[in-house]
């Protein structure tokens, strides 16, 4: 049909012109030159039309809500890549791709991680030597192993580690380096601190250059932050209950409780200031966070205000 089939050269030139004009669209001299180039050969004009058409098809700025496009494309691509690597390409390719991802993508993203979970997801990974990693919702961990050692990096979220006593286990968190010795412990990275709870064995906290090594004994809960490491006398929430699909609280502030629940669901979840300090004790099932929220009006003098599935606010009774 068409008079001329654009060759690679005219297509590449057309792309160059389109980009130049997009960058400096108002420059009349440039527009003039581009017009000359287009009329020089029919192939040029044909290539130009196609490139402009393609550019319009790929233009995401024109669609309302397109602000989400970049984020959506980027994070879905990372996950897709990860899934492909895990399921389709097999172990060797997976190691290669993990290294490639770590090099090429921004290191802050959870989806470059070796092990990761999405919102509401909990997963268990058993390493070949028997070390067990359990990741809670929205968590990401990197792993580098040698024959004698596992080095883990907690990038976000929460995990429980059941250590193999034969192998040194180091967990790098934002607030300190933890070393496990054959026991079991949980680490959770919050926005301003890291919490560590040990159920079996003991864990060393290394903060090189800042403080001598401290030891967390079985049954203890500690808080690590930029200032130091402190043992907590009492906690308002069972640190391990999530591994059984539960939240177990003891007189927890309502707003802290909602912060915890919101880790397991999408969207906004908050409460008004007047009820933030109400206390809540109980055992809650994690499998359905929406159902869990319905319990609140039955136990506390509060009501749920729900605009959409994604926006829920707990308020005092009027």
């Amino acid at each position, binding site marked *: 049909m068409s008079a001329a089939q654009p060759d690679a050269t005219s297509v590449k030139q057309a792309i*160059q012109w389109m980009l130049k004009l997009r960058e400096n669209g108002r420059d009349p001299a440039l527009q003039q030159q581009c017009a000359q180039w287009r009329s020089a050969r029919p192939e040029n004009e044909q290539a130009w039309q196609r490139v402009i058409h*393609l*550019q319009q098809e790929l233009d995401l700025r024109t669609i309302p809500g397109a602000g989400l496009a*970049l984020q959506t*494309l980027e994070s*879905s*691509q990372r996950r897709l890549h990860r899934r*492909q690597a895990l399921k389709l390409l097999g172990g060797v390719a997976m190691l290669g791709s993990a290294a490639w991802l770590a090099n090429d993508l921004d290191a802050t993203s959870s989806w470059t991680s070796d092990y990761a979970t999405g919102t509401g997801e909990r997963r268990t990974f058993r390493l070949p030597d028997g070390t067990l990693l359990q990741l809670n919702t929205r968590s990401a961990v990197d792993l580098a192993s040698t024959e004698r050692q596992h080095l883990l990096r907690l990038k976000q979220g929460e995990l429980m580690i059941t250590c193999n006593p034969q192998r040194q286990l180091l967990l790098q968190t934002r607030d300190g380096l933890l070393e496990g010795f054959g026991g079991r412990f949980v680490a959770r990275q919050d926005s301003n601190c890291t919490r560590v709870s040990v159920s079996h064995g003991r864990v060393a906290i290394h903060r090189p250059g800042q403080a001598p090594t401290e030891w967390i004994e079985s049954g203890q809960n500690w808080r690590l932050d930029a200032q130091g490491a402190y043992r907590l006398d009492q906690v308002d929430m069972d640190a391990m209950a999530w591994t059984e699909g539960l939240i177990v609280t003891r007189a927890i502030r309502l707003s802290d409780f909602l912060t915890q629940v919101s880790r397991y669901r999408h969207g906004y979840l908050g409460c008004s200031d007047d009820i933030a300090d109400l206390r809540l004790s109980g055992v809650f099932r994690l499998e359905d966070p929406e159902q869990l929220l319905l319990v609140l009006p039955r136990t506390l003098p509060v009501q749920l205000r729900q605009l959409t599935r994604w926006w829920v606010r707990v308020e005092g009774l009027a």
Partner: protein
Amino acid sequence: MPSNDSLQTLYSDHHSWLHAWLRSTLGNAADAADLAQDTFVRLLQRREHLQLNTPRAFLRTVARGLVIDHWRREELHRAYLEALAHMPEAQAPSAETRELLLELLERIARMLDGLKPKVRRAFLLAQCEGLKHQAIADQMGISVRTVERYIADALYHCYLLRYADECDQ
């Protein structure tokens, strides 16, 4: 197009094997059944004659492409909903806009498959955010010249895919 006979044989010999492979890959019987079906439909639509010395390897290649398409769609939906969740309610797009956008995103994601992450990112910053080359260079910590090359490469890549059918004829 493959003759009905050969496709028939292919189907009866290998359908249950393909279904099992898809099932173990996807971890979901219903999706596996759909994609096994789609794989054979895809073969029916092919123009060239099939000469299959290793039918299972061939089937797996076709099916793998479909699996990746399937996952891409899933991940796009998931990522989109997550992005949406952080958006104030008032600005959230209507249901029709969402559908439209997701369709477009899927087409673009598919086109960009195989591009290097940095090339892809530079291109997307220009297409989604409308950033100037200098701003992209600053954000990615690379030179403007490299940004220009990345974006031009990405566009050429898309061009070849977009107009591939017309080039064949």
